[in-house]
């Protein structure tokens, strides 16, 4: 198609503003005759024979390769069976690059892999080398059915369906609609109504309110000792040195360390709300008067349950007095009444007002004044 073949090319091409040359980024140049708008599909390329198609030796080689791969699979399967009976479940094995690992896991897994890969690679190699590689052309047909068939469906729905007289008898139409609309209600009600207890006030209560705080409970407050978690022993104010941090549960929540008796009936549920962190700071560093007032000589207690989504705020930075939640990195400043200084949480950690009893042990002076943990609509 050079200029010898088409002597009048220049007249066929609409001239743009750039002289005669066709710019590469110019989009379409409209042909005015002679040439088609698009190139024509050249059709399937010529078929190239594979080695195995023309050379019987190559084909035999491929056959042997496939058979070897299938053979590897058989070996892998047999090895799996042998190892299953040979290995003890507690045995470990050292694998370079992996380290010490379960012998059954590594051994059985590798054998299983050989068993599978042998079959898979063998089958694919067989298909690629020996099975026919002539591409087959299948015609497509439009997805839509013929107009007559579509019209027939519409006709059946309107006419045959209409012969039920549903449109002519509104009483049936509306009662059927009502019945079908309602029949699922009992099923939904059964599931929805029986899922479990509703919260009542329990999201706003903790064990610090005076004991069990589940739905329907009405605990009355009395001062409780702060107990070390998990040792379950009370904490003397004098033993809390500056910079130290204690994981704390309220008195009576944890079962007795020795006998395993006592403690909350719903242990995990109560722990999930009552967990407290106890820290001692130099009172001069505390910038909030309320924090000082609710603490005891620089000893302060805060809820350990993050106000974001409720993970335990487990990381305390002694130097900066920051508490960090490991789940989503909300950061609370203990010197500023646990205000959020970074991260996705909005509210400060609730403070537990504490004091000391006659024996010098730390006790709660009042329950939490707000709901601990994540926000909810009616928490206020």
């Amino acid at each position, binding site marked *: 198609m050079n200029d010898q073949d088409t002597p009048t090319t*220049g007249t066929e091409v609409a001239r743009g503003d750039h002289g005669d040359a066709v710019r590469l980024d110019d989009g379409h140049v409209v042909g005015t005759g002679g*040439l088609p708008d698009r190139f024509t599909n050249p059709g399937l390329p010529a078929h190239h024979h594979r080695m195995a198609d023309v050379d019987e030796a190559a084909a035999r080689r491929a056959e042997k390769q496939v058979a070897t791969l299938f053979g590897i699979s058989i070996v892998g399967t047999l090895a799996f069976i042998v190892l299953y009976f040979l290995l003890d479940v507690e045995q470990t094995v050292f694998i370079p690059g992996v380290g010490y690992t379960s012998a059954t896991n590594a051994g059985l897994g590798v054998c299983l892999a050989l068993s599978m890969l042998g079959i898979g690679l063998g089958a694919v190699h067989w298909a690629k080398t020996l099975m026919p590689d002539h591409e087959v*052309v299948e015609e497509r047909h439009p997805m839509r059915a013929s107009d007559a068939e579509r019209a027939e469906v519409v006709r059946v729905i309107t006419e045959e369906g209409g012969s039920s007289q549903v449109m002519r008898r509104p009483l049936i139409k509306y009662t059927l609609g009502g019945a079908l609309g309602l029949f699922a209600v009992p099923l939904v009600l059964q599931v929805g109504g029986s899922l479990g207890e509703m919260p009542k006030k*329990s999201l706003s209560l903790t064990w610090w309110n005076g004991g069990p705080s589940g739905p329907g409970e009405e605990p009355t407050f009395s001062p409780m000792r702060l107990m070390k978690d998990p040792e379950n022993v009370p904490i003397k104010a004098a033993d809390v040195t500056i910079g130290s941090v204690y994981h704390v549960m309220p008195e009576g929540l944890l079962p007795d360390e020795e006998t395993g008796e006592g403690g909350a009936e719903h242990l*995990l549920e109560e722990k999930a709300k009552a967990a407290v962190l106890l820290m001692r700071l130099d009172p001069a560093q505390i910038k909030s008067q309320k924090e000082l007032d609710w603490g005891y000589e620089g000893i302060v207690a805060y809820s350990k349950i993050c106000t974001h989504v409720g993970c335990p705020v487990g990381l305390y930075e002694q130097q900066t007095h920051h508490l960090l939640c490991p*789940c989503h990195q909300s950061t609370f400043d203990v010197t500023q009444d646990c205000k959020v200084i970074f991260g*996705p949480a909005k509210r400060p950690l609730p403070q537990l007002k504490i004091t000391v009893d006659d024996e010098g042990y730390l006790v709660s002076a009042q329950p939490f004044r707000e709901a601990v943990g994540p926000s909810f609509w009616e928490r206020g």
Partner: protein
Amino acid sequence: MSTTAPDPRPADALREGDSAPATPPSAGARSIGGFAGWVDDRTGAAKPVGYLMKKVFPDHWSFMLGEIAMYSMIICLVTGAFLTFWYVPSAGHTVYDGSYVPLRGVEMSEAYASTLHISFDIKGGLIIRQIHHWAALMFTVAVVVHMFRVFFTGAFRKPRELNWVIGSVLALLAIIEGFAGYSLPDDLLSGTGIRAMAGFVQTAPVIGSYLVYGIFGGPFPGEMIIPRLYSAHVLLIPAVLVGLFTAHIGLVALQKHTQFPGPGRTNDNVVGYPVMPVYAAKAGGFFFIVFGVIALISALVQINPIWGYGPYDPSPVTAGSQPDWYMGFADGALRLLPGWLEFTFFGFTLSLNIALGALVLLPLVYMVLGVYPFVERFVTGDDREHHLLDRPRNAPVRTGIGMAGITAYTVFMFAAGNDIMAIKLGMSINDITWFFRIGLFVLPPIVFWVTKRTCLALQRRDRDQVLHGRESGTIIRTPDGRFFERHDTELPEDQWILVQHEAVHPLELEAETDEHGVARPAARKDRFRAALSRFYFADAVNPVTPAELAAAHHHGHETEAIEAPAGAAEIESAETAGRH
């Protein structure tokens, strides 16, 4: 069979052009025919089975991504069924006395104890558990990458929009199924995940506290969540997943697979290999390859060592707690959303800092995905069936949108690792979080722009290659001493791929008033559509047309240093003739 019938009816006779088998059927063929005949007598299955066995599937490596997803799902179903034989879906308390010494005597749930039992006391139990977890990860990865392939090649266009929607639902179900699954061991890590989930649900506006008590059957954690997640994980979600998957693959068979453009491939045909035997061997073999690779990974790479974390307890937590990768984007969103999105008014609390990331983002992502084909259909107004795939460069705006979406997703996902990055890179977690917060808004537009420009540049290069012709490497000297290089001027077969796509133009805006001066009611919608169409196609680079190629050969190329003089072919042919 017609050959043995005493009096063949016309319908049984060979059609014109058919030839009778040269040899009588072998004993093997007769026995297969005998059994198949027995089945066919009772089911009439010969027709559909025969059709399926001859069905043609086009070949391309990227078509195997969906296969990987399918096979990983099957592996999950098989290994998952095994695990149910030993796993105890109960939060009931027990004291561990199995063979893992560090946890002996520790109080834990039966769920955790039975997971330890599978890992340490059931021979081969650990490998099955590891295969199950790795296959689930492979499944979710393959689903996502398969979606990329379908999106960037425009395979979602008519008639496949429905299947794209089904696929989007499948992708969402896959990650919910994954979450339910990795929550079952009830170790400290999975329990922390459930704790966060309870927090998300609790922040749902108005009904949150009732919803969370409903799901957990009372206060968190309760004893109901493990059996309920188990029921969802092994029964409810798999049932829907398998049902929709069947519809998904059924539609693929019904609509026939799309194919990449190429010589001989048109919108009206499928070029490939028949199921019997080639595709059956390749696809069947590929199942074993996927299974084998997952088994190998599971044998050598440990996943989720639940014994390292101890039983769930709401008070302790491990640093670096993270969900499996596919939940990472939602977790990352939670880390990025600032706290000031929580509002309090009239005594009610609205926690958008949590609800947006945990409750809105997840369905929103999959809704946007599901809706995209209909948006593009609105923009192009194209109502034809498309069975030939687009090369991603030939749809620069779509490719740009896809890459921008992937970028936003990736920012969210990496944000879920901000603590790990801070430790490994020795950087401030605050800086990293701010980088992601800003990046979420800045990076997608940049990536969109870069991707679009790259696509346009690649398209121009395609045009250049076609217009320039193939360099023959032959330099020809004319009798008067001029030199020029000969370029092949026919479009070579291997360049068909560069010109096969359709030219596109922005929609023209029709007059807003009709010939009587009356405003057309649809004018506003049309303006919107025309604006979108300009956004998509205003700077489209269209394929070379035959006229352009002819013109390019006629005029030479502006950038060509040595231009072919008029009559080059004559000179050339004269030269050639002279040589021989």
